[in-house]
């Protein structure tokens, strides 16, 4: 596959591994957070840890929109399907997220709720057109990569005069989450960030500049493939060694400083900032999420239906909050791998395959077990 396989080359990987070994100073530790869940997944799935110098550690960040989706928001989705008789269209990623009353969207579906997996918002719109007599609600999740497609869906629905389509909006913002991590009391022992790939395609590299300036942490935006991640870590090592803290772009083939202006404009047309939003594991963060503008109220499931949000606390034994902030590693959670597994996820980090705990369990737990 062109422009994919080349960035997975084992040969180039050993070259980059050698470059990192040469450049990483043996006198210090390097701690970098990869923000994006996709990067967490790539690191585990390719075993990139084996190719990094031993004094370079990757900390897994909260950039997994399924992981940070509060239980109460899934409850809302389930209630829409069960109580309001709506057809709930959702990406597959959310189907197994544990919600209240031992339910998941998948279990609710098995119990008769009309919940349908879609690959795209266009599929959700097709369902709405095909079932004019039913309400169709699209469960919108994701960071800035996935928000533009939802914007297009709302605008399309408006243009067509669709009367039975709405969105349950859970779109969240990357810079706000990065800020929450960096602004944690006591500071956070991080030397830099590997910035998200496709979020940056949309928002550009400019939004990360305040982090480099205000917190003095370098940010290198990395493409999605393993070689991209390795090269970005190499660039971070370089900045740390030089005492620099700027935003650099490894993913130049897809990311510019300004980003995708057309996509940004469409998002601005449809969405506005929420004052605050609850993130699972991170608490309530101001200006961190979106909702539909009043002009599009008829497409906002929260205004169209009565499904008030009820916050649900996480299991006390769950260490997801600390793990999402990079303070703990999955294996340091008391219930990791015993009570909490991908089959029976207790917390958000185990729910999605790119959550730190799920990624470690699925791809990497053989490393500790050797003890």
């Amino acid at each position: 596959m062109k422009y994919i396989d080349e960035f997975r080359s084992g040969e180039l990987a050993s070259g980059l591994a050698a470059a990192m070994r040469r450049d990483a100073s043996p006198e210090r530790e390097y701690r970098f957070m990869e923000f994006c869940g996709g990067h967490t997944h790539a690191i585990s799935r390719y075993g990139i840890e084996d190719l990094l110098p031993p004094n370079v550690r990757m900390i897994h960040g909260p950039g997994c929109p399924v992981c940070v989706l509060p239980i109460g928001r899934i409850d809302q989705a389930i209630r829409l399907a069960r109580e309001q008789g709506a057809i709930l269209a959702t990406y597959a990623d959310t189907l197994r997220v544990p919600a209240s009353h031992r339910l998941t969207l998948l279990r609710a579906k098995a119990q008769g709720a009309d919940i349908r997996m879609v690959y795209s918002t266009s599929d959700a719109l097709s369902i709405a057109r095909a079932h004019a007599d039913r309400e169709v609600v699209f469960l919108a999740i994701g960071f800035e990569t996935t928000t533009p497609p939802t914007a297009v869906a709302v605008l399309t629905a408006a243009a067509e005069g669709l009367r039975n389509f709405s969105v349950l909006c859970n779109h969240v913002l990357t810079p706000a989450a990065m800020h929450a991590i960096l602004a944690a009391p006591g500071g956070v022992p991080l030397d830099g960030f590997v910035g998200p790939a496709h979020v940056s395609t949309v928002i550009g590299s400019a939004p990360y500049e305040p982090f480099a300036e205000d917190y003095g942490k370098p940010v290198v935006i990395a493409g999605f493939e393993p070689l991209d991640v390795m090269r970005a870590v190499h660039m971070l090592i370089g900045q740390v060694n030089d005492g620099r803290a700027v935003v650099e772009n490894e993913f130049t083939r897809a990311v510019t400083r300004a980003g995708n202006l057309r996509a940004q404009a469409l998002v601005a047309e449809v969405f506005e900032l929420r004052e605050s939003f609850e993130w699972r594991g991170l608490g309530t963060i101001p200006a961190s999420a979106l909702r539909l503008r009043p002009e599009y109220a008829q497409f906002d499931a929260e205004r169209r239906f009565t499904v008030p949000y009820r916050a649900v606390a996480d299991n006390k034994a769950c260490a997801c909050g600390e793990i999402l902030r990079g303070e703990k590693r999955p294996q340091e959670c008391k219930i990791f791998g015993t009570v909490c597994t991908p089959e029976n996820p207790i917390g958000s980090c185990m729910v999605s395959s790119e959550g730190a705990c799920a990624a470690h369990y699925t791809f990497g737990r053989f490393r500790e077990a050797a003890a």
Partner: protein
Amino acid sequence: MKANYARPLDVKHGQVDLSHGSGGRAMAQLIEELFAREFSNEFLAQGDDGARLADPRGRMVMATDAHVVSPLFFPGGDIGCLSVHGTINDVAVMGAVPLYLAASFILEEGYPLADLLRIVASMARASRAAGVPVVTGDTKVVERGKADGVFITTTGVGVLREGIDCSGARARPGDAVLLSGTIGEHGMAIMSLRENLAFDAPIVSDTAALHGLIGELLGAVPQLRTMRDPTRGGVATTLNEIARQSGVGMLIDEAAIRVTPPVEAACELLGLDPLYVANEGKLLVICPPEHADAALAAMRAHPLGLAANLIGYVQEDDRHFVQMQTRLGGRRIVDWLSSEQLPRIC
């Protein structure tokens, strides 16, 4: 044959109805004019509820499988030939020569007879090509909505070959792990038709009867430890099953596992891992390392094993992990599937 029925079965426009399962004349007609006509052999011709089989002269092996695939027709095959191949393979991987099949059908009221005929004709073709007759069967009809068109259960019996001892419990550290060909085709052929995930892709199911390939293999290397066909859950699941059964670990090489470009691309688009995608015509083989070359040569000489490859080795590991050297050079485990693999957007 004297016509016993007022009108022949309307296979062009007719549908399955509850009378076809009631045991009466309608059911007898369905069996005679559709099933028995297609399968046509000495056993069914006897017309009894069961089949008298020849003396097995050896240790018997039996296997059974229910088939509920949806959609019923897919590129490269259908539920009919799938059910024949699948059970033949289950018997053959035990090291037995498959001899006979039984087939029971659960039909949904309203299912078109024309499609049922297509399925049964396909089964009959597969059965004849494999040399394994369907000697007895059963039909039931359930109300509309209680079945997905057609469910088929096939049971196969065979006789263990002399001197062969194949089992999932026999893998030993140092053994070679071989794979007969490219992976992921059946699962992705099915995916390409599923609602909401449709796309045009030239991916064809690999459904096939493997007993011929297995015969060649056992002839060349009777010392084989294990054979298994990696169906649901893919190669990853089968390797983990064998590892657990044998109490060992494995180390496989990602670069040695062959995936055709369209399958790789389709998996990429959906966020699926080919290692977990179903196959229906592939063989995983575990054999003593000194016989690996002979085993590979035997497979590659057969049409169903042209792309056979050595993919790794069994190793000592009391945690029973299947480890993989990724194409990048790092390591990861290939874990059990936690539940059905769903497409990802993240």
